[in-house]
């Protein structure tokens, strides 16, 4: 299942931020999105996640098997399948575990399956000793890991990460890289923005550049 955006355009008053004829993010693929500050990276990610309405065009999930394509039955097909992670993640009032379990309430899972996913996520995010603590007291790196783990438990089809490594220490970056590798191996498509080349961007199959209102895929020789 690919995430497909067709003819999307974003305009703020008279200012045109970008226009993209077509964008395809395949499952299991990792893409590094680059662009200067103000180029519209965050807006693009939010549009792709269905959190912001573009001025024009549409975003949808394209299934390989048309027979099982029932997106039209769902009024909100991107919700819970394409997950956006803020640069500074928002954590709900409550414990680490409650934050992890938030999205699972919206999936048809057994209690055992929910519990097992939370257990795995807590261990993977290296938050086991803090699992009953309030999420509000976590450090920057712990918050970022918890936010990623909270997305990870949902088994999303696509994960869109906005500057996930900004101001993180090497340990936290390594933990996040391990979680992203696991997600990618499960077939999750990853689109991440970053100004620096880090462990997270290292294994990207594609690099896109959002500049001068256009999105271009960088050829191999121009890649960082």
């Amino acid at each position, binding site marked *: 299942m690919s995430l497909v955006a067709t003819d999307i355009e974003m305009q703020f008053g008279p200012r045109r931020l970008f226009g993209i004829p077509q964008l395809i993010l395949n499952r299991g693929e990792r893409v590094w999105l680059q662009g200067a500050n103000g180029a519209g990276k965050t807006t693009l990610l939010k549009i792709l996640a*269905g959190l912001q309405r573009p001025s024009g065009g549409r975003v949808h999930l394209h299934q390989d098997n048309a027979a099982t394509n029932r997106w039209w039955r769902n009024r909100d097909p991107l919700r819970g399948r394409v997950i956006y992670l*803020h640069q500074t993640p928002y954590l709900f009032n409550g414990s680490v575990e409650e934050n992890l379990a938030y999205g699972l309430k*919206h999936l048809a899972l057994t209690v055992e399956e929910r519990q097992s996913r939370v257990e795995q996520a807590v261990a993977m995010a290296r938050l086991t000793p803090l699992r009953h*603590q309030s999420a509000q007291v976590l450090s920057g790196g712990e918050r970022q890991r918890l936010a990623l783990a909270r997305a990870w438990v949902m088994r999303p089809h696509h994960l869109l990460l906005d500057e996930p490594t900004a101001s993180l220490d090497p340990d936290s970056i390594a933990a996040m890289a391990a979680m992203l590798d696991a997600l990618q191996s499960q077939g999750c498509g990853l689109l991440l923005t970053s100004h620096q080349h880090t462990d997270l961007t290292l294994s990207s199959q594609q690099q896109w550049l959002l500049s001068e209102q256009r999105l271009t895929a960088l050829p191999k020789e121009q890649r960082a």
Partner: protein
Amino acid sequence: MNDGMLSVFQQGLSLLFSFDPDVWAIIAVSFSVSMRAMALTLVPCILMGFGLAVTRFPGRHAVISLCQTLQAIPTVVVGLITYLLLFRQGVLGDLRWLFSQNAMVMAQVMLAAPVLISLSYGAFSSGDWRAWETARTLGASRARAFLTLCHELRAPLLVAIIAAFSRIITEVGASMLVGGNIHNLTRNIPTAIALETSKGEFAQAAALGIVLLILALMINFSLSSLRTQQESLRRG
């Protein structure tokens, strides 16, 4: 406090704690009317505050300014408007609500609504929008994301609810005009205090004043507990 005043408050306390039927009937009318008014306004007004914070439409600023202005409208003016709507030749005269609890509820709805809408609009528009986006991206429906947002903003929303409730439980002008201060029917705490004081019967007025004071103390105490709890959560 001189002896006279002390004695009035002692008599007031004794009336209150001896469960004087007249005093408690007045308290019951007050709470019944104000709670019904709150029950009617709460959900629609918070939704309107949310709607004003998230939507953009022509005249939005005018609606916000109107609600903010109406927060300070004198209660007696609201009473007059309600009276004009409900009196026999009024638009709603056929309802025959004048001098009934329904009329008081109607006036109090008109008083509480602008406070609730303005303050909940303030809470939603200054709240952290990432809470809504995070809830939505994690699969929450719009309704559930709204409930999550309300939970995250519970402190400012509670302030809005308490401000609205305080405005209506203590108002005297509208209740007096449209309720008529009828014994055991529409006499509430503020109208009873005004009446008893004018008659020189200070003991009952003091008893009812004590109820309002206790209510104010309880509200302040619960608000400050909530603030302390949230502060300690933030600090760990």
